C-alpha cells in the first residue's frame, strides 16, 4: 500500500484543519491510516489501490475538506487548448499515449514542488506500473515552443539530461544514469526511443526516463507550468493527468487543456474529464445496508464523498463521481460511499437470525482422534513449514519421488513443496540431539503430491518417528493405533533407499497399501547429522479412517 510523507505546514491549511487532533479519525473516511506523526511532517498510508488521487497531499486534503464542507467543483472551467502536441505513428508499439495540460497563476513554492515530486514518484511507480503505463513530466511553460512533437528517435540522439553535467546519448542515459538503469527495461525491445521535442528542436524529455536539463527543470518561483503524462494505457495516462490538474487547480492554478493530434487525423483535448454516473435503487441500498434508504439524507451523504449531480428520484438515486476517480464500476461502489458517509460505527450491529449447524472438516475430526492416540503413546507433536528444500527431501532423506518445485523460489531453502513429512521429523531429530531421549515425534500436515503426470493434489499425512528407537519401536506405535482404530494392518517387505535394506516395509491397512515404515539408513542419519538410530512411518491420514 502506498505511503506518503507530507509537510504539515503545507497539508493542514490545504485540508482546512487547525491541528492534527482528529486526523487519525478523519483519515478513516478515505481508507487511510495515520502511519506516523512527526514534528513537521505526517506519514499516511493509503489502503485503496484504486484511488491514486489520494496518493498526494492535495488528494488527501481534498477528501478531508469535502468530508467537512461537501462536494467541490473540479476543472469546470478549463481554458481551450493553448497548445498542441503532434504524436508520431512510430510510437504505436512503444508508448502510444500522451495527455497534457498547462497550469498558470500559481507560484511554485518548496512544499508545492515537493508535492509534485511525490505525485511523480508514487503515482507513476505504483498506479503507473513503474512508469510503464504512466510516467509524468513537469516543465516551465515559457521555455517551450509549441507545437511539441512526441516521436521516436535513434538511441544516438543526444541531450543534456536533468541533473547531468554534459550531453549524453539516449543509450548512455540508459547505461549511466540512475533513472536510466532503473527504467531501461521498458525500452529494451525497441530500436528507437520516445522523445519529446519542441518546435525549435529543443529536447524536452526522454520519456519515461528523464527530463532535459535546459527545458525540464521546475524551480520554486515558476508560475507557469506545462505537464505531460505518457504511457501504454490510455485510461491510466488520462486519469493521472486529471489528478495532477485537479491538484494544481486546488493550489490556485488555472488549468488549460492541450490538444493531442494523432497521426490518423484524430485529435483529443486533454485531460478528458471522467464523469462516471452510478445509479442504485432504494431497494438495493436498503437491502445492502440494512437501513431504510428513504429515511437517509443521501444527497448530503454523497456530497461528503465529493459526488456531484446527485439526483434523488422516486425509487433510485443517481450520482456522478468526481473526475479524478475511475473506481466506480458497479452501483455497489456508490453504496459503499453511502455507508462510509453514514459511518460504520453509527450503524447498529445485528446477528444473522438464520440457524446454521457448525462442523469441522471430516479430515480434521479424524486427525483429532488419531492425535489423541499418539499423545497417549507418548508422542510429541511437531510442526514445520510446508515449503522446504530439495536438499532436505531428496538428498538427505533420499525420498524416491521428487517433490514439486517452485519455479520462482525466493531461496533454495524454500524451493519445493513438501511431498512427505518424514524429512520434517528428521530435521527436528537433527536439531534436538541435546533434548533428553527417547524422542517419539509425530506430525500431521498437508503435503502436495503428483497425480498422474500433470495434476497435483493435496493430502493430509501422518508421520511418526522414534529417535534412539528401532524398527520395533515405531512398529508398536503403528500397531496400537491400528488396533484401537479397529483396523487390520500388516507389513509387506519393501526395500526403499531411505531405510536399511531388509528393515523397511509397505504398510497395508485392511489389505490396501497405504504407507511406508522402516529403520532409517545410517547414510540418511549421517546426511542429517543425527547420532542416534531413528525409525519412522508415514501414511495418509485417511487410511486410518477405516
Amino acid at each position: 500500500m502506498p505511503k506518503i510523507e507530507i509537510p504539515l505546514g503545507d497539508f493542514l491549511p490545504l485540508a482546512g484543519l487547525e491541528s492534527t487532533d482528529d486526523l487519525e479519525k478523519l483519515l478513516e473516511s478515505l481508507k487511510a491510516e495515520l502511519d506516523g506523526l512527526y514534528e513537521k511532517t505526517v506519514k499516511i498510508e493509503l489502503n485503496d489501490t484504486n484511488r491514486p488521487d489520494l496518493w498526494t497531499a492535495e488528494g488527501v486534503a481534498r477528501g478531508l475538506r469535502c468530508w467537512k464542507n461537501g462536494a467541490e467543483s473540479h476543472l469546470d472551467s478549463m481554458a481551450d487548448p493553448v497548445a498542441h502536441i503532434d504524436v508520431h505513428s512510430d510510437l504505436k508499439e512503444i508508448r502510444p499515449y500522451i495527455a497534457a495540460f498547462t497550469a498558470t497563476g500559481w507560484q511554485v513554492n518548496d512544499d508545492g514542488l515537493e508535492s509534485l515530486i511525490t505525485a511523480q514518484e508514487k503515482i507513476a511507480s505504483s498506479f503507473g506500473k513503474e512508469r510503464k503505463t504512466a510516467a509524468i513530466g513537469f516543465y516551465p511553460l515559457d521555455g517551450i515552443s509549441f507545437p511539441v512533437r512526441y516521436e521516436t528517435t535513434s538511441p544516438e540522439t543526444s541531450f543534456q539530461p536533468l541533473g547531468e553535467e554534459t550531453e549524453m546519448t539516449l543509450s548512455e542515459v540508459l547505461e549511466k544514469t540512475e533513472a536510466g538503469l532503473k527504467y531501461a527495461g521498458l525500452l529494451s525491445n525497441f530500436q528507437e526511443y520516445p522523445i519529446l521535442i519542441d518546435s525549435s528542436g529543443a529536447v524536452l524529455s526522454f520519456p519515461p526516463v528523464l527530463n532535459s536539463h535546459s527545458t525540464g527543470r521546475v524551480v520554486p518561483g515558476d508560475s507557469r507550468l506545462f505537464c505531460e503524462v505518457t504511457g501504454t494505457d490510455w485510461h491510466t495516462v488520462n486519469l493521472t493527468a486529471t489528478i495532477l490538474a485537479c491538484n494544481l487547480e486546488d493550489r490556485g492554478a488555472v488549468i488549460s487543456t492541450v490538444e493531442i493530434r494523432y497521426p490518423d487525423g484524430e485529435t483529443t483535448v486533454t485531460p478528458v474529464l471522467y464523469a462516471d454516473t452510478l445509479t442504485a435503487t432504494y431497494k438495493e441500498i436498503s437491502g445492502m445496508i440494512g437501513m431504510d434508504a428513504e429515511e437517509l439524507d443521501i444527497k448530503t451523504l454523497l456530497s461528503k464523498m465529493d459526488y456531484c449531480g446527485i439526483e434523488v428520484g422516486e425509487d433510485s438515486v443517481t450520482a456522478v463521481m468526481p473526475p479524478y476517480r475511475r473506481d466506480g464500476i458497479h452501483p455497489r461502489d456508490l453504496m459503499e460511499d453511502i455507508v462510509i458517509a453514514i459511518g460504520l460505527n453509527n450503524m447498529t450491529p445485528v446477528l444473522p437470525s438464520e440457524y446454521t449447524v457448525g462442523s469441522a472438516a471430516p479430515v480434521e475430526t479424524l486427525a483429532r482422534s488419531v492425535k489423541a492416540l499418539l499423545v497417549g503413546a507418548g508422542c510429541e507433536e511437531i510442526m514445520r513449514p510446508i515449503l522446504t528444500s530439495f536438499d532436505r527431501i531428496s538428498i538427505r532423506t533420499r525420498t524416491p519421488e521428487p517433490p514439486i518445485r517452485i519455479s520462482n523460489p525466493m531461496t533454495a531453502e524454500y524451493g519445493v513443496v513438501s511431498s512427505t513429512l518424514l524429512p520434517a521429523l528428521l530435521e527436528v531429530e537433527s536439531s534436538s540431539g541435546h533434548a533428553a531421549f527417547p524422542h517419539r515425534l509425530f506430525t500431521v500436515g498437508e503435503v502436495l503430491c503428483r497425480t498422474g503426470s500433470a495434476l497435483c493434489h493435496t493430502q493430509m499425512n501422518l508421520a511418526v518417528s522414534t529417535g534412539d528407537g528401532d524398527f520395533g519401536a515405531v512398529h508398536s506405535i503403528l500397531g496400537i493405533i491400528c488396533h484401537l482404530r479397529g483396523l487390520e494392518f500388516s507389513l509387506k517387505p519393501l526395500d526403499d533407499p531411505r531405510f536399511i535394506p531388509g528393515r523397511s516395509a509397505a504398510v497395508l491397512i485392511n489389505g490396501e497399501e497405504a504407507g511406508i515404515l522402516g529403520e532409517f539408513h545410517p547414510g540418511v542419519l549421517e546426511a542429517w547429522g543425527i547420532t542416534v538410530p531413528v525409525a519412522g512411518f508415514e501414511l495418509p491420514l485417511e487410511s486410518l479412517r477405516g
Partner: protein
Amino acid sequence: MSETVSKDLHPLEKTLLNWLSEHGSGSDMEAMEGTGMDEGSCRRALQWLFSREMAQVVFSETTVTVELGPVGSFYLEKGTTPELALLEAVRNGISSLPEIQKNELFERAQWGSAMGALLKARILKKSSEGLILNDLSGGVFSAIWSSVYSPASQGETIHLSELDEKVAAEISNRAPKRGKSRAEFVINETTSSVIEITSAGREALESARGKSTIGILTREILASGEWKNGSFRRYQVDIPPSRIHIGRLHPYAMFLDSVRDKLQAMGFQEMKGPLAESEFWNSDALFMPQFHPARDIHDAYYLEDGVEVAPPPRDLGSKVRAAHENGGNTGGRGWEYSFEWDRSLRTIMRSQGTALSARTLGSNPDIPGKYFGIAKCFRYDQVDATHLPDFFQVEGIVLGEEINMRHLLGLLKLFATEVAGATEYKFVPAYFPFTEPSVELHVKHPTLGWFEMGGAGLFRREVCEPMGIDVPVIAWGLGLDRMALLALGLSDIRDLLNPDLARLREMKSTPEKLLGGDENA
C-alpha cells in the same frame, strides 16, 4: 530419596546420634573413628543434624601443622640440608661456590639457592678471599633442623604456632601453596570441632529407637506386613520434582483447534481446499484484475512447468472472464481490459484463504450457510520475526437472503468478543479487491491493546454472479498470529514452527488462554 533429609532419621544420622548420645560430646574426628563412617558420610550426616538442630558445635579450633614435603624428606634421608652442608664445607675451608658444587650430595641449583639463602640471612658473607662464615652457629638453619627435621624424624606432630618466629617465617616461605611436589615443607590447616547432641537430637533418637524406618514402600513390605512394626520415613515434600517428558499436542496446533471449536460453536462449517491453486480460483474468481499489484509475479510462488490443478468448468470461466472484461451480467462495467485465459490457468501456491471461499461459492453452498477455513497460505516474503514462508489464515463466508452490512458488523462484533475476548472494538472503512463495502475490525484486546483483528466485507456482485449466487455474501478473515504468539508466550513467529525439541518442550500449553469466553483469562 537417600539424599533427602527427612524428619525421621536417616540411618547415618541415627548412627551418629547414637554415638553422641553415648559419649555426650566429642570431636568430629573421634565421631568418625568411633562410628566407622567415612569422612564424606560423617560430614553429610553432621550437616543434616546441624540444620535440624539435633546437634550443635560447642567448640571449634583450627590447628596449623608442619610436615616435611618431598624435598624435605629427601634432605632428612641425606641427614642434612644444603644450607647446613654448605656451612660445613666453608668451615672445612672450601671458599667458592663452584668448588662446593663439585660435591654431588646436592644438585648444583640446590647449592646455589642455599648460598643465596645464607647470604641473605647474613650467616655467610663474600670477601676478597672468598666465602667467610659470619655466624658460626648456623642461625635459623640449625634451628630448623633441631625444631622441625629432628622431631619429624620421630613422627611427632609439629605445630607452627609453637615454633620460633624466625623459624616459622622461613618455613612458611618454603611451603608454597602450589607445586607441593617440589616443596621442602607442607603446612596443613585443620579445623576440628567438638560436637554435642541437643535435646531435639535426643528426642528424635528416642522416638526412632526400637522402630524400623520404612523408606520406599515395596511389594515385599506390603506382603509381609512389615510396615505394621515400623514407621515411614517422612519425605521432604516441598522439593521440586524431576522433569519428565510426555506425549503432547503442539501448542500452536491446539491454538488452531481452539479457534476451530469457537467457529463451530458459532455455526460455521469447515472448508478444505488444495494447497496449489490455479490463478483462476486464487484471484480471478475473486474479481482481482489480472493487472492488480498483488498479482505481480513477485507476490506468489509458481509451480514448476507441467504441474497443474484441474481447470475450472468452462462456462464458469466464461462468466468470470466477462465480469472482468465488461461486467457481464453483474450490473457493472468490469475492469475494461483483455482477460488472459492462460494466466487464469497458471498454478500457484494458494496466496489467500479467500480462494477456499471462492471454491465454496462455486460448489452449491448451503443458503443460509456459514463457512470457515483455516488455510495454509503462501506469500512471497523474506522470512523474519513476523513472516513465515507459509502461514495459516482463518477466514470464511456467510450467505443468506437477509444478510446486510449490519449483519456483517454483528458478526465482527461477535468475533471481537468471542474470539479475542475484546473489551472494545471499532469498525474502519477498508479496501479489499473482492468486497464492497469493506470493513476492518479493530479490537481492544485485554493484553495486546488495540490491534487490527480482521477484515470483512460484502462480496462484490462480480464475485457472486458468475457463481450463480444471488444472495448477499459476507466474506471475513481474521489475523490471529499475534494472539497465538501471546497465548504461547512467544515473540518471534518462527518459534511457532521451531525444530528444536528442547525449546518446544518449554512452550506452554495455554492455547485457550486468549480466546474469549474463558472467565479466568
